[in-house]
């Protein structure tokens, strides 16, 4: 089974899905991501689906679940790079992916998360993950 790599950039975890999502891959990604959020204490998750041609209802629900899990762990999830065809299909299917934030590309996704954190105003402008880790018990 293929695993989707999770990259850590500063305070953000970047998940770039480059393979066709099978159900197992999706479930594995959910578990891996939850573990990584806890381990790194990151406050943002960016899921890049530029390479995905097909987003079915299962993958749609996986994205929703990941967003919910991340929110519980105090991390903001942004789905970036959805293709027009995928967006149209999702709308036609009636899946509007409620509760998921979206951005056009990774760069804008990072801006969005930074803006979000600045709005919330906790831990000032210090996003260092190390200080996060030591601060938490």
């Amino acid at each position, binding site marked *: 089974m293929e695993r989707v790599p999770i990259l850590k950039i500063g305070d953000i975890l970047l998940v770039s899905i480059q393979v066709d999502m099978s159900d197992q891959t999706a479930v594995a990604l959910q578990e891996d991501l939850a573990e990584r959020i806890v381990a790194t204490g990151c406050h943002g998750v960016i899921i890049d689906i530029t390479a995905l041609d097909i987003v079915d209802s299962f993958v749609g629900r996986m994205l929703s679940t990941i967003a919910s899990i991340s929110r519980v762990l105090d991390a903001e999830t942004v789905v970036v790079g*959805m293709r*027009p065809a995928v*967006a149209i299909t999702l709308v*036609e299917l009636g899946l509007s992916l409620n509760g998921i934030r*979206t951005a*056009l*590309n990774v760069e804008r996704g990072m801006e969005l998360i930074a803006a979000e954190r600045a709005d919330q105003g906790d831990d000032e402008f210090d996003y260092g993950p190390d200080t996060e880790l030591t601060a938490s018990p």
Partner: protein
Amino acid sequence: MALNADESGRLVDVLSRHVDRITRRWAEVVAAQLRGRLSQAELIRQGQELHRALLDALGKGAVDLTSEEATELRAVLAEFSRGQARQGFSATETATGVFALKDALLTVLDSDQSEGTLRDYVGFSALVDQMGLFTFETYVRTRESLIADQAEQLLELSTPVVKLWEGVVAVPLVGTLDSARAQVVMERLLQTLVDTGSPYAIIDITGVPAVDTQVAQHILKTVVAARLMGADCIISGIRPQIAQTIVALGIEFGDIATKASLADALRHVLRLTGVETGRRQSRREA
């Protein structure tokens, strides 16, 4: 079968003996219909061509318009009919162009009363009827293809996506929004969002004559799709009557921003992106 071999032979004889009279008479009848929209010379030329093709077909032994020998005659008729359709002549005028052949032949036969003329004429008349129907079919086909072409061009022309500002694109919708057009608009808008990386899109419906539930549905779908991709849509150009219709129909735009004019929408977006606009400053000074 329209003609037998004998009739056909006699007809060829008559047609070839009175080329000028037939052509002239034909031109006269058609000219009366067209009321000067085609020049006499042009008509004579058409008449000669028709006459020549007919004579040719009959000469080869064609007894029917569908027969092999009449291939060229059919081509000439089709060409004639297409020309008429493209120049905007009516169906009646086009058909008359063929039926005038009967009239033309009748004048020739009047001066030449002999046994069997009536039978010949009836046979010829049946052939001309076939030609008329064929012409009419070609005419309708030409018109249909014209309409199809125009509809396609309209689809291409009327859905531009323009860049208004850095990161802001607009779609000025003009004309009725049916499913096919809505699909084209949606695809083009979303593709432009990806290509330009614009996080804001303004859908301007000033040029949409009426908004019903279906049109609203199309617009809403586009907005939701754009949101899924991470772009925000603003709907602008809502005229007073349209606003009333929307409320009367109970269409919910939810949390989608709607503005009265394109200028308002642009100002709204610029404010969101943090660009100071002139009017706000002047207001502050006042």
